[in-house]
């Protein structure tokens, strides 16, 4: 019951924030200059299939962080920029781990500690799928496989990511 109450006020709150967003939109349009300054970091590398995702390895901690980057994708009809994301952290052996955020159930995007009730887990907002920090799915929740793992390498202190593979064949 109390949860229900909370939900309604949260909904109202979000509704207000959404309608207040117009100001942000205007502000966002005023700073196209910034782009010049930011661009070099996001430039793609020529290093094969692996792409510089704009994250320095020294900035990777043991706490998973989300990185977003773009790749060029050509299919039969279009060439387009496709957004990719990963959850990146260092494991206990100081190795960089990059997990795909795509839920293995039906493909929603999972978040690290996305639910307050499940600290230290990845949480899927769609049907409550959960995964351990290493990407292993938690039995009893909808997903039946672990999160995919990205091919990765480090060059000049920057993180490069490639394709995501199901665990086991990476």
């Amino acid at each position, binding site marked *: 019951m109390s949860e229900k109450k909370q*939900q309604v006020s949260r909904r109202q709150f*979000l509704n207000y924030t959404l309608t207040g967003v117009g100001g942000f939109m205007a502000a966002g*349009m005023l700073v196209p200059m910034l*782009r010049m300054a930011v*661009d070099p970091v996001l430039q793609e590398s020529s290093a094969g299939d692996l792409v510089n995702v704009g994250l320095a390895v020294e900035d990777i901690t043991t706490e998973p962080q989300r990185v977003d980057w773009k790749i060029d994708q050509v299919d039969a009809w279009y060439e387009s920029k496709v957004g990719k994301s990963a959850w990146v952290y260092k494991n206990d052996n100081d190795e960089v781990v990059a997990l795909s955020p795509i839920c293995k159930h039906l*493909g929603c995007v999972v978040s690290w500690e996305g639910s307050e009730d499940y600290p230290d887990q990845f949480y899927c907002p769609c049907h409550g799928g959960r995964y351990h920090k290493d990407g292993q799915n938690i039995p009893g929740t909808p997903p039946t496989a672990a999160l995919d793992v990205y091919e990765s390498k480090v060059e000049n202190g920057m993180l490069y990511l490639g394709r995501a593979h199901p665990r086991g064949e990476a």
Partner: protein
Amino acid sequence: MQWIKEDLQQYIQAKEYVDTIIVPLIPYHLSQDSELEKNAFQSEVLSIFAKEIEKELSGRVMLTPNYHYLKSGSKEEELKRINSWAGDALSQPFKNVFFVTFDSTWKKNEQALDGTLIWLPGIQSGDLKSNEMRSFIHDQVEQIGEFIKSYW
């Protein structure tokens, strides 16, 4: 999920998990030169918005094709047609219907819609490929996502 063959195969297998549809409402016209660019731009941005939201929540959300209507047309007639889109989904059964739009006239007709209106005010122009636009859309998508999740 989107209304494309590949996603629909998955949808049919997993219907019980997909309970929310998103319908983008996009005005179209060729008659008012001064508004043309703005409206076309908003249409592009809204399509991107809708796709990005779908990407975050694809396991539970069906993004319908864009609903286009003549900007100068009768809103009453459009309401009827829009609600018939909603009705088709609700009988599947989808539980939640969300309409996303930049067109403020729907705000006035909000009560008559068989679903929840997400009206995004304000965006006039800009560069779709710029990084600010990208991060701006990113933030917006996050907020709209939170809003939709609050109905689950």
